[in-house]
C-alpha cells in the first residue's frame, strides 16, 4: 500500500511538472475560485459580526407610570424578571435619567423647568435569540401587560433592517458559496479531464506494465488534490493580504477578521480532490 501511494504521488507530481503551463493555468483559476469562496465566507463572517454588534446595542426602554410610587419599582422589576429570567434589567431612576439628560443635552433645562418631567424606567437587554422583529413585538406586548408600565420603546426599524439584511446575506452567501464550490470543482474536473485526455497512451501503457486501475486513478486524485491545495494556499494568502489592506484603510474602528485562513487550503484540497474524482469516474477508462 505504501509503495502504491508512492507511485501515485510521484507520477501525480511529475505529471503536473511535465505540463507546467497547464498546471499553472489550473492553479490560477482555482486560486480565483477558492478566493471567491473565501471572500464570501469571510465577508459573511464580518458582516454577521457587524450585525450582531448592532443588535447588541439595541435595547428596550420600559417607562414606568408616574402613578407608581418609587417604593414599588423593585416589585415591578421582579415582575419583569419573571417574564424571562434571561433578560438583563437595569433600573434607571428619575434622578438618574435627569442627570443623564442634563449631561448629554442641556444642563440648564431643569433650572428652567423647576421640575423633573422624566419618568423612571428599566433598560432591558434581550438575548440574541429574541432579537427578531416578531419576538420583539411579543416582548413589548408582555411588558405592556404589566400594571404600571406606560410605554415600551425600541428601534424597530434598525431591528427589521438588520434582520432582513442578515436574511439576504445568508441567501447571497449560500448562492455565492455554492457558485464558488461548483466553479472550483468544475475547474479541477476540466483540468484533470484534459490531463487524462493528454495521457491516454501513457495510461494504457502503464496498465499493460501492470499498473492497477486504482493506481492510475490515484495519480489524478493526487493531481487534483495538489492543484486544490496550492490554489487554497494562494487564496488564503490573498485573503490575508486583502484583509490587512482593508484594516489599514479603515478609519472608523470597524474590525475586519480573517479567522483560520488555513481552512481555505483544506477546502481547496477537498474541492480539488472532488473535481478529480468526478473527472476520473467520467473519463478514465482502465
Amino acid at each position, binding site marked *: 500500500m505504501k*509503495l*502504491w501511494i*508512492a*507511485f501515485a504521488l*510521484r*507520477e501525480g507530481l511529475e505529471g503536473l511538472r*511535465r505540463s507546467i503551463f497547464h498546471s499553472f493555468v489550473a492553479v490560477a483559476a482555482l486560486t480565483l475560485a477558492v478566493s471567491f469562496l473565501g471572500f464570501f465566507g469571510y465577508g459573511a463572517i464580518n458582516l454577521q459580526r457587524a450585525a450582531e454588534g448592532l443588535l447588541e446595542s439595541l435595547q428596550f426602554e420600559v417607562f414606568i407610570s408616574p402613578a407608581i410610587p418609587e417604593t414599588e419599582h423593585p416589585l415591578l422589576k421582579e415582575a419583569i424578571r419573571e417574564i424571562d429570567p434571561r433578560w438583563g434589567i437595569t433600573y434607571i431612576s428619575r434622578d438618574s435619567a435627569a442627570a443623564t439628560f442634563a449631561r448629554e443635552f442641556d444642563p440648564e433645562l431643569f433650572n428652567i423647568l423647576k421640575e423633573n418631567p422624566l419618568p423612571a424606567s428599566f433598560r432591558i437587554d434581550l438575548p440574541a435569540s429574541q432579537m427578531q422583529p416578531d419576538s420583539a413585538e411579543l416582548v413589548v406586548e408582555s411588558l405592556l401587560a404589566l400594571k404600571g408600565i406606560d410605554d415600551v420603546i425600541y428601534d424597530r426599524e434598525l431591528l427589521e433592517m438588520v434582520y432582513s439584511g442578515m436574511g439576504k446575506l445568508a441567501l447571497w452567501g449560500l448562492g455565492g458559496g455554492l457558485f464558488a464550490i461548483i466553479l472550483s470543482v468544475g475547474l479541477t474536473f476540466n483540468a484533470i479531464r484534459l490531463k487524462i485526455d493528454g495521457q491516454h*497512451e*501513457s495510461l494504457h*501503457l*502503464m496498465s*499493460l*506494465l*501492470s*499498473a*492497477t*486501475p*486504482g*493506481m492510475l486513478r490515484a495519480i489524478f486524485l493526487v493531481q487534483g488534490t495538489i492543484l486544490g491545495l496550492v490554489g487554497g494556499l494562494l487564496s488564503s494568502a490573498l485573503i490575508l493580504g486583502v484583509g490587512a489592506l482593508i484594516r489599514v484603510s479603515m478609519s472608523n474602528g470597524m474590525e475586519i477578521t480573517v479567522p483560520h485562513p488555513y481552512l481555505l487550503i483544506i477546502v481547496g484540497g477537498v474541492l480539488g480532490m472532488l473535481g478529480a474524482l468526478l473527472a476520473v469516474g467520467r473519463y478514465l477508462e482502465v
Partner: protein
Amino acid sequence: MIRFLNVSLEHLPGRGIKGVSFSIERGQFVLLAGPTGAGKTTVLRLIYLELIPDSGQILIEGQFQHYNRKRELALLRQKMGIVFPEPRLLPDRNVFDNVALPLRIAGWKSRNAHLQVNRLLFRFGLKDRGRAFPGELSSGEQKKAAIARALVARPFILLADEPLSNIDAEASAEVLEHLRQINAEGMTILAATHIPDPYQGLAHRTLHLRNGRLIE
C-alpha cells in the same frame, strides 16, 4: 509454463484465433510465425491479459486466469516483459525513466531501481543515453530501450512482438544477439514475427499461424 487449451477469440470481425492449443516450457525460445493478420499479436495479447478469450483456457504458470480480478492480472503482468511492435516509449520521459517505469509501478525502492536500470542500460549499450528522450534516439536504440524496459522487472517470460521491425540490419543483428544471450541465461522468450528467417538457429520451436489457426 504457458498453455493454450483450444483458445478462440474473434476480437474484430474476421480477426482473431480459432482453437489454438500449444504450450511453452521454461527456458524455451519459441517463435510465433505467420503473415500479417494471422493472429500472432492476438496470441501475445491474450498471454499478457489484454484480451479475454471467447472460449478455451489459458494457463500461466499453472494457473487459470480470472479476468475479473484486476489486481491479480496486474500482478501477473509484473512477471511478464512485453516488447511491442512500436517501441512505445513515453515521449515526455527520458530513457532512464522509461526503463524504470515498470519498477516504479511494482514499487521497487529507488536505490534498487536505480541500480537495476543502470545495469540494463549498460547491458544494452545505452548507458550514455539515459538522459536522452525517445525522440533523440535512433530506431535501434529505441528498440533496445524497449527491450530493456521489458526485462527490467525480472520477468519470467519475454513476449516480443516483431522485435526486429523498423530497425536496420545492424541493429537487428544486435537485438538478435541480445535475445540469444537473454535466452541463454534462462529467460523464456516468445517472439512473434512475419519474417522468421533471421531467427534460424536461435528459436527452439516455431509455431506457424495462418488465418488464426495453428499449423504445425
